[in-house]
């Protein structure tokens, strides 16, 4: 079965640079979520999109922005990167039409390292 695809899988950036992470949800899933998991930390919800509209916002820094495109893929744009942004970034997708539990299916993550 198709899974959530994230690219790139690994990314190394310098401080103050920008980064763009991409997420391709499972086909027919209409909701995308972004989470950040720092080393030894629990996942933290950043932002979500339902039918291409922002549906919920968590602890996403103002330096970050995200959007969901017409093909339902999503991009997380990160600017003025800081050392503390080094983390695993997970994208998840879901669809209430596909499952009554509306469970979130997580991708493999993008490991961002800021030097």
């Amino acid at each position, binding site marked *: 079965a198709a899974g959530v695809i994230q690219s790139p899988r690994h990314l190394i950036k310098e401080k103050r640079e920008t980064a763009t992470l991409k997420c391709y949800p499972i086909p027919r899933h209409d*909701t995308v979520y972004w989470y950040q998991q720092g080393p030894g930390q629990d996942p933290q919800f950043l932002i*979500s999109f339902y039918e291409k509209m922002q549906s*919920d916002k*968590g602890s996403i820094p103002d330096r970050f922005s995200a959007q969901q495109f017409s093909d339902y893929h999503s991009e997380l744009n990160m600017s003025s990167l800081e050392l503390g942004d080094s983390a695993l970034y997970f994208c998840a997708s879901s669809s209430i039409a596909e499952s009554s539990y*509306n469970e*979130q299916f997580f991708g*493999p993550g993008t490991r961002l390292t800021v030097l």
Partner: protein
Amino acid sequence: LAKTTQPISMDSYEGQEVNITCSHNNIATNDYITWYQQFPSQGPRFIIQGYKTKVTNEVASLFIPADRKSSTLSLPRVSLSDTAVYYCLVARDGAGSYQLTFGKGTKLSVIP
């Protein structure tokens, strides 16, 4: 969203049943209780979800008392591959999406 509290860690021998209890005293009427499993450097994976009473699927059971202030995840006959972090979450429905707020999960170590 209701805060959840669960044990930081648990150890179990292979073949035993493991029960992980989570408290969520301030759960709201439209909140669901959901459990996810996470292996190192992998995304969390949905295990089970319930609203009240008992839910069972092919991998686990979830027991929720009438007051819904706690829940217990039951893993029957664990194996070494069940070593992972287990998260109890309260999921709030919002505009077509369920926001998941991860707290401190339970690190389960299965011992041979």
